[in-house]
């Protein structure tokens, strides 16, 4: 485990941001931290970054109790991000890289590599003010990963990115994962969760309400519903019930009476109609999110 969070509690004057949160994040995965706005995601991220300290509970990084030295192994891209506007891009990245513990020579070497790789050599001496928003986002991303952190924390990384930069970012994230970096990635955009994450945790009202590997979570939320396409007249049967019917494209959603007894359902169906398609309905993370958040209100 790169990160083990045990019973973390964080209270503010007028509310409790985290009420006993426990999580385990395995090495080398992309971990989605989901939850509606105000659920406590940012509070948890700030604790992992040691920006604030928990009131109760403990956090372990790579098996050790979280300590100041660990900041050098964590990269953090906050949701609200910015740079020193008047400072030159090169100076700024050198400063941020050295704050993360790189030596001057090493910071310079690595930054040169990044500038060559992203083909942005002529930015080095430009003040940040002169860069477009997309260019600033690239600069920020370099600042987040230049010290090659073991754990990368991205808070709503795609917000404000245009599709081209979002794609570049996605490729970079996958490339970092290939090299063994663990990525903790907080979002409420479910499409990026489906696309990128290996595991998720859903936080609502200051508590973890759902956690697990992506496919396992999906399976948990299966309703044993199947989509069928057919021709003929579909009637009731004791092996399934019809949840909805769409006669205009000859399809329907059915729910099996006995989970996993697909063969008997198919047998019942082919007695009534000509069956073209029989497909399990896999719940989307959007549905799961809405369902779980709704249930835990």
């Amino acid at each position, binding site marked *: 485990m790169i990160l083990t969070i045990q019973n973390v509690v964080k209270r503010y004057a007028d509310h409790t941001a985290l009420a006993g949160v426990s999580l385990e994040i395995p090495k080398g995965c992309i971990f989605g931290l989901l939850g509606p706005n105000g659920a406590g995601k940012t509070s948890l991220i700030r604790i992992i970054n040691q920006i604030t300290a928990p009131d109760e509970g403990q956090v372990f990084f790579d098996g050790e109790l979280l300590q100041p030295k660990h*900041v050098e192994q964590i990269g953090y891209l906050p949701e609200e*991000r910015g740079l*020193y506007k*008047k400072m030159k891009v090169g100076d700024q990245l050198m400063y941020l890289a050295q*704050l*993360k513990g790189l030596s001057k020579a090493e910071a310079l070497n690595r930054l040169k590599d990044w500038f060559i790789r992203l083909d942005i050599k002529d930015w080095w001496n430009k003040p940040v003010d002169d860069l477009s928003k997309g260019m600033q986002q690239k600069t920020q991303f370099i600042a987040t990963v230049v010290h090659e952190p073991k754990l990368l924390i991205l808070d709503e990384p795609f917000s404000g990115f245009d599709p081209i930069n979002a794609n570049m970012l996605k490729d970079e994230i996958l490339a970092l994962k290939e090299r063994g970096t663990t990525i903790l990635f907080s979002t409420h955009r479910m499409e990026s969760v489906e696309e990128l994450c290996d595991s998720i945790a859903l936080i609502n009202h200051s508590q973890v309400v759902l956690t697990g590997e992506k496919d396992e979570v999906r399976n948990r939320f299966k309703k044993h519903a199947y989509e069928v396409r057919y021709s003929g007249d579909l009637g009731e049967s004791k092996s399934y019930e019809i949840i909805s019917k769409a006669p205009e494209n000859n399809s329907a959603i059915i729910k099996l009476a006995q989970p996993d007894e697909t063969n008997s359902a198919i047998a019942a169906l082919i007695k009534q109609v000509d069956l073209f398609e029989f497909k399990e309905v896999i719940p989307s993370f959007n549905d799961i999110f809405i369902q779980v958040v709704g249930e835990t209100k």
Partner: protein
Amino acid sequence: MNKILLVIQREYLTRIQKKSFWIASLLGPLLITAIYAVPIWLATQDKEVKRIEILDESGSFQATDLVDKEVEFKLVNKPVSDLKGSFSKEGYTAFVHLPKDLLTHSEDIKIYSEKNLSLPLKSSIERVIEKKVRAILMKDAGIASEVYEKTQVEVSSETITVSEKGDETSSSSGGAMILAGVMGMLLYITLLLYGSQVMNGVIEEKSSRIIEVIISSIKPYQLMLGKILGVGMVGLTQFLLWIVLTIGLSQVASTFYAASPMKQKVEQIKKVDPEVAKKMDDASPMAEVTKVIESTNIPLVIGGFLFYFLFGYLLYSSLFAAIGSAVESTAETQQFTFIVMLPIILAFIMAQFTMQDPDSTMAFWASMIPFTSPINMMVRLPYGVPMWELATSMILLVVGFLGCSWVSARIYRVGILMYGKKITVKELAKWLFYKG
């Protein structure tokens, strides 16, 4: 520690790379030099001599009585109505009408001019008339003019400070007052100037949102400390540049003075009259400066200045940093900056009284309380302060700084992450007791 150095380095370099820093560094000494050089330069310029007509109905004046450096008088004998029409056409600035009964009604003198007379010209005219009228009145009263001359004494004194051991030093009250005033002013300006630079730096980091990235690498107090020290070093650099440039420019200015006709004139006068020469030397600013240097403990004053600048700056700039952290833009800072500026302004006002009576009870307390002590102790120092008072004041200032920076650091660490909330003073007080 290494990371604080990085912050200091960034704060320092980004500021001294700005054009505005160099403009201020160059303009400062130029202004100081100009304050001294311009009056000297103006004095070397020949003044235009004003011409005045005098209609003397009393008959007391002869042409020989009417001599003045800057004014040329001419006695005339024409009716007032004629003079009114003619004086300006004939190139006179004004004409003066002296009534018949001048000796008894000296307030009836009338000066006619086209434009308002300048005050110095009016007093030159009055001085000349006064002198003559007084001489006539003296004579009438039976006082010989020699007796009158003898009674014209000028009193001047030399002040000497006596230490407990009985050592005597010739002191300079005027010089000490000037030195005190300059130092108080300098501290006042720099505390406000560099304090608000720290505040704006904090606001910049918060409003550009880079703050969260930075404090994921270092602790908030490290960032705050680095910023305060970096800006403080910019302040010291500026002092140094000012001192070096002012000395340099004064050298240049005095070289020019030595080669100027003014200098030759002064030398001529000195040769003719040794007594005048001595008086001139005593009154020149250089003599006053030399006297101050001889009579004050210069290392103590310079050391004191650096100490009170450093700790006064540290105390106030940490408060300014706390304010910067609590707001989101410079526009919102007013109500809070006022709270911090109030003691600085108060200290400066108190310093005006301290300067006049450096040993009063008020001056004593003003130089002990950490918020007012930097300016007030600096004002007292050139007059001489007992060692125990100085030591107590310094210790209290350091304690005050530690207390303020504790308060500030606690407000700062909460404030920098607080957005979209209208902050009140009560709210700030609550932040002091937040955990972690």
